[in-house]
């Protein structure tokens, strides 16, 4: 038995349904900018609903900085204060570079749920789905940077490059990280599960971050390893970031960072979009 109020509710719902379905006029297709903003808003809302995902940009930097400063400080540089001057720019690069891989994981999750298919059936400029998310990631990266530098200052880090040098250094990191993220989006579209993607990213990032000039002066390394360290993009970025923070940046250092970043985007952004559009 359906009582009469229930029945009345049913009827009004049906009428509303009819109205809601039949009353639409199609708005103009959104511009690339506005669809990008919608996707950025989605990423921001996700942070609000799943705040745990901010651990990587808050706790990671703090733990990394404390751990490496006090673990290696005495052994490598003789004192933690001296080592911090050398280490902080590098460890900042390493931390932010590592958290870029979460971009790929988010995308991989979207694919396994149906929302990826829904986005792809919309008449929108498709790259906005990724660019919107990446823009919010850039905010996350800058948050990690500020937290780490703040903690570094408290521990005795004194950048000779001053505020402008530090800001330029962060700028370098953000440009590089945005570009690096496209590698993870590409992998996120190829790899089947979140687990294998995590593993793959660690496999790439571990050697890249450790076999670089982040922790030690490359002149202490065997010569065959020095060759790798020199062309390692992480070293290239760490050199420029150190340069800005200590006021010794050269045009050449900056140029190399920009060239590497440009290369990443030029190769992996089109590849990502191709895979995104043609994913089975």
């Amino acid at each position, binding site marked *: 038995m359906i009582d009469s109020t229930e029945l009345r509710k049913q009827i009004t*719902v*049906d009428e*509303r*349904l*009819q*109205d*809601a*379905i*039949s009353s*639409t006029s*199609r*708005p*103009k*297709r*959104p511009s690339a900018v*506005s*669809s990008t*903003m*919608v996707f950025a*808003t*989605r990423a921001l*809302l*996700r942070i609000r*609903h*799943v705040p745990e995902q901010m651990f990587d940009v808050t706790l990671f930097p703090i733990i990394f900085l404390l751990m490496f400063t006090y673990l290696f400080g005495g052994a490598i540089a003789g004192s933690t204060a001296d080592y911090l001057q050398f280490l902080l720019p590098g460890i900042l690069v390493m931390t932010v570079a590592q958290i870029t891989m979460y971009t790929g994981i988010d995308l991989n999750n979207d694919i396994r*749920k*149906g*929302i990826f*298919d*829904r*986005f*792809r*059936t*919309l*008449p*929108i400029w498709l790259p906005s789905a990724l660019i919107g998310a990446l823009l919010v990631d850039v905010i996350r990266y800058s948050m990690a940077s500020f937290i780490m530098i703040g903690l570094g200052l408290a521990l005795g880090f004194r950048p000779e490059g001053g505020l402008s040098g530090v800001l330029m250094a962060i700028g370098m990191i953000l440009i590089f990280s945005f570009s690096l993220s496209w590698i993870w989006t590409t992998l996120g579209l190829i790899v089947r599960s979140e687990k294998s993607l995590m593993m793959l990213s660690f496999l790439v990032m571990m050697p890249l971050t450790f076999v670089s000039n982040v922790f030690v002066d490359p002149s202490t390394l065997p010569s065959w390893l020095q060759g790798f360290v020199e062309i390692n993009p992480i070293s290239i970025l760490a050199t420029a970031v150190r340069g800005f923070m200590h006021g010794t940046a050269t045009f050449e250092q900056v140029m190399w960072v920009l060239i590497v970043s440009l290369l990443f985007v030029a190769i992996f952004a089109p590849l990502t979009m191709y895979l995104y559009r*043609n994913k*089975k």
Partner: protein
Amino acid sequence: MAGKTTTIRMLATLSKPDAGTARIFGYDLATEGDRIRSRISLTGQYASLDEDLTGLENLVMMAGLMGYGRKEAKTRAKELLTAFGLEDAAKRQVKNYSGGMRRRIDIAASLVVTPDLLFLDEPTAGLDPRSRNQVWDIVRTLVSTGTTVLLTTQYLEEADQLADRIAVINQGKIIAEGTSSELKASVGTGTLTVQLVNAEDRDRTIELLKQKLSVGIHTGTDPTTLTAQVSDPSLVAEALGALTQERIAISDFSLGRPSLDEVFLTLTGQAAETENV
């Protein structure tokens, strides 16, 4: 995976066909995907929303992606939530929705701008009867307002209830197509069931019916029940007349249209899946 989802994914521009062509509203699937995308909508088998966001946030996002401004997007999202009976759940994360609510918000997300063609991939799979009826009502309302709906289903009753045209897919191939009535007619008028008063009359009756109907007679566990698939109803009258002449007493008889289930089993000879248009 006998071809339904693959077909829908290709038609909704998600997968590229290996061979062949298709046109939707006159646009070529291979080269005019963008034009097609602006007139279709897809609700897949799996919840195609961001489950961490609330229902309202999801619909506002979809409206934004369809080109609504910030304010209009919110108005439209609220209108849809009310229409789909979800206004109380507007501020809850979609992951906390029940199965039926999830389906409804999923369909609502596809209707932010009423599409000319809506793909629904198994919209009622796993739903309780009440939620299923709600989805059916939504589909009927959509069709009545002029949207073409292409839905796949495993349930033949659903196809019978909703579809104007049905295509039966078995192992990736369409094995029959037409209206529900056409499909039913194609496998015969239906099933004749005769209930005898005395089980001793059974063999005699089988002989007689075979002769008059010229089809196979089936017997079940109940010795007094006989069934046959007949194609011509006029033969049935004759057969029953013959039984009366032979003084075989029957307590009941019925001639039913075959159900779509019977149609399907006859067509395939095995249990499989169906798609209806």
